[in-house]
């Protein structure tokens, strides 16, 4: 089952400048696992040293926050879109 992971601008530098990637994955955790295997530099930006999703990175399946679903165990189905939404602060002085 292919799900699309959208990579946000601040993290594209660590993902070969890609804006998205597709993986076969049954859960959000699996998809992010594939993503960080393909782009190993992304790992430290998404996960803590003990493998937990960082608190300033929000992950959505379609338009729902996985914190209010089953977190990384949230199931995904063919055609789902996973969005990684890191905090950005710019207003630009």
């Amino acid at each position, binding site marked *: 089952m292919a799900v699309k992971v959208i990579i946000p601008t601040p993290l594209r530098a660590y993902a070969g400048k890609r804006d998205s990637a597709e993986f076969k994955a049954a859960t959000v955790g699996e998809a992010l696992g594939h993503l960080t295997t393909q782009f190993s530099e992304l790992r430290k930006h998404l996960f803590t040293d003990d493998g937990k999703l960082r608190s300033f990175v929000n992950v959505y399946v379609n*338009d729902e926050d996985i914190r209010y679903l089953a977190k990384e165990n949230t199931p995904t189905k063919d055609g789902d879109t996973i969005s990684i939404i890191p905090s950005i602060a710019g207003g630009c002085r």
Partner: protein
Amino acid sequence: MATKVQPLTSTPKAATLSNEEILRYSRHLIMPEVGMEGQLKLKNAKVLLIGTGGLGAPLGLYLAAAGVGRLGLVDFDVVDFTNLQRQVTFGSSDVGKSKTEAARARLSNLNPDIEIESYETKLTSENALELFKDFDIIVDGTDNFPTRYLVNDACILLGKPNVYGSIFRFEGQATVFGMPDGPCYRCLYPEPPPPGLVPSCAEGGVLGVLPGIVGSIQAMETIKLILGRGDNLIGRLLLFDALAMKFRELKLRKNPDCPVCGNHRTITKLIDYYEFCGVRGEEAPGPNVQVPEITPRELKSRLDRGDDLFILDVREPHEYQICNLHGHLIPLGELPRRVHELDSSREIIAHCRSGKRSAEAVDFLRKAGFRKILNLKGGILAWSDEVDPSVPKY
């Protein structure tokens, strides 16, 4: 689901418009969604803009033009040349002036019928509540995490809406926080990223039109809150990708465990936000690496002496095109797989724009066994200041 909001302003104090105002606002007055009632709500509304930069520019211009009766402007910064690419409130003749004063002059010229108050100060935990209390709506157009958390917490403590917008390169976010049943910034992001992990606009750049679009969305949301019309971005995070030219929307939920707006609140007064974010300001240095350095002047005299030095430029190719010191270009991100291009027996001077990325490069290469390597202190910016002013700064 979007929530209908109640008009925020109580019974209007100003009950009429002058003939000049009727003419000025005629395109509002002939729309039933605004009309005389709505225009009077705008006239009686009090909106505080935090930041008069990229987002603050369209915010100030549109809210002043729309006839928001009292606009407060908070900023401590001075207009510089790099601002003019996107901060359209300012003109070339404003460079060097205080942003709040330059913005005040521009906005009063646009609309002399409104009150504009400028606060030339940095927003702090000491002054935020006092500044916010006389305004109906707070609009967050700041550029750093400590101030964003400060604005959020102050709005929650005072029960005021916080119209949020944020940008990076060609991507933007907008939403409305701080409504009674809606989420707040901490519901979305309980904690800030560690310093250095997320680049600032000064480091990452921003397409000049982007703050124009995101700031305009904030201005529209502010006006809708005042009018009590339409569906606001409450509980919805609007994402805008200017390159793909796509808008997307995500659901935001109120976090019942939120420390500032949840059921068991642990934050009941303003805290030290710099400590909370682990930084002093938005220009957070990255991982603080101590590496051997050379000053631009020392480098110049050694080059003049004819010393055999290998200049390594670790910036990106598009930066090399702006200006360079004729160095060998290997962007920092490509260094690990291009180490073989370097000769460890030669003395290497690494440089970037400001000296930060090249410090990481020197650190990396030292760990890889390079011994004769120095970082150019202050980068190409310092080179321009101290050695060769013909090299442009960017």
